[in-house]
Each structure stands twice: as C-alpha cells, then as structure tokens.
C-alpha cells in the first residue's frame, strides 16, 4: 500500500489468491473487493490447458449451470497479425438442449440471466489467449444443471469442485 490518496484503487494480484482455479488468473474484481463493482474474472488459457477426452471434465471444462445475472464471456485472441483468430478451439454448449458450438474466433458470448450454458471446454490451443468472465451483478452466483448431462459424464466428475453459490435451492 502506497501513501497516495488514490492508490487504493489500483489492484494487483498474486496467483496464489486463487488456489481453486485451474488456470492462471490475472485479475479479479467483485463487490466484496471494491464496493460498487460487478463480478469480473480474467485469466489466460495456455497451450495444453484442458485438452481432454470428450466427456472427461475432470481438470477442465465447466459443467452446465446458470447465473442470476447476465454474463459476458469474452474470448480474445493474442496474435498481433491476426487478432480475430483465437488460436484455439473451444467447445461450448448452449441451452437446456445442449446445442453445440465451436469457438475459434475472438468473440463474446452473451448469457442471459438464468440461461443454461456450458459445458465449456477448450479442446485445442496453439497460442495463449485471454478469457474474461463478466457478470452483470455484484458477486458471482451459480447453480448447477448437471441433470442434463449423460449419466456417464456425471459419474466422472468431482462435484465438490462446482458448488452452487447464491441460490436458495
């Protein structure tokens, strides 16, 4: 902490702050850290992260869930010569029907409140890229919808990694 008046508004991070996370988290913010802030989580995705078999979500991939507030999922490529190329392929499922999408370009996925989304899984990555999760609410909320997954996928998961947050039921 410096002695300036407004230095308190500059946040730096130690990756050890996020022991539960499975990727290098670069920045985090919510209403608990700075009153009035919404929830933001920004991290790198590196080559080798999350390359797993089709239904093995154990160390990557985020199972189906909803949030109370709208969410924006920014996928940002880092090639200066071709910034719209993600340098990776991400599998994303949308809706209760689990409609499959493949993300290979810089984009933002808009997730309305209570909209079932994921599994989200990086399935290839040949260049680091930046993933940003913004919730349009003060803190992170999450409710699992793992009942839409096939039984064999549910049995492979450690569900303690994905607790519900902010929901009564």
């Amino acid at each position, binding site marked *: 902490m410096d002695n300036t008046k407004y230095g308190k508004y500059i946040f730096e991070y130690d990756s050890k702050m996020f022991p539960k996370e499975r990727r290098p988290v670069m920045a985090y913010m919510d209403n608990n850290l700075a009153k009035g802030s919404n929830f933001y989580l920004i991290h790198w995705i590196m080559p080798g992260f999350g390359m797993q078999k089709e239904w093995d979500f154990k160390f990557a991939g985020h199972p189906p869930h*909803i949030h109370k507030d709208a969410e924006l999922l920014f996928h940002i490529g880092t090639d200066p010569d071709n910034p719209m190329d993600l340098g990776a392929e991400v599998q994303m499922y949308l809706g*209760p029907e689990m409609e499959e999408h493949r993300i290979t370009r810089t984009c933002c996925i808009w997730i*309305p*409140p*209570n*909209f*079932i989304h994921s599994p989200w899984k990086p399935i290839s990555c040949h260049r680091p890229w930046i993933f940003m999760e913004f919730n349009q609410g003060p803190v992170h909320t999450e*409710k*699992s*919808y*793992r*009942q*839409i997954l096939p039984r064999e996928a*549910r*049995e492979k*998961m450690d*569900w303690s990694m994905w607790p519900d947050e902010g*929901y*009564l*039921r």
Partner: protein
Amino acid sequence: MAYKIDVKKCLKCGLCVTDCPEGAIVVDDTVTEDDGLTLYTVRIDPDKCTDCGVCVSHEWWCPAQAIYKV
C-alpha cells in the same frame, strides 16, 4: 388456472419454487441422486396462483422453459 408445468421439459431444479412471488409453485416430491444432486417434482397450486404471469414473463425465468400459459 392459467399456467402449467410441462413435466417433460421440467429439469426438476426447484428454482421456480423459490422464485414464485405467490409461493404457488410447490414441491410434491424430492429425490437426492447418488452424486448429491437434489431434484424436485413440482406443481402449480391453483388455490395460490394469482395468474400474475411472472413465471412466463421472460424467456429464461424457467431455465428449462417448462412453464406455459394454458
């Protein structure tokens, strides 16, 4: 009663039970699966439902879109 729950679409999450402002969506049965997931069989109580329409007021009020107007 003007609203019903499509039991084929319902994912038994129970969200509507806590969200209904009239408390008109009630749990008939609760089952906890092997992996700890609790599923709720729910119905709309016609004596409590005021036909306010909140439950169909926007596309994702029910994540399964299982509530509909009769």
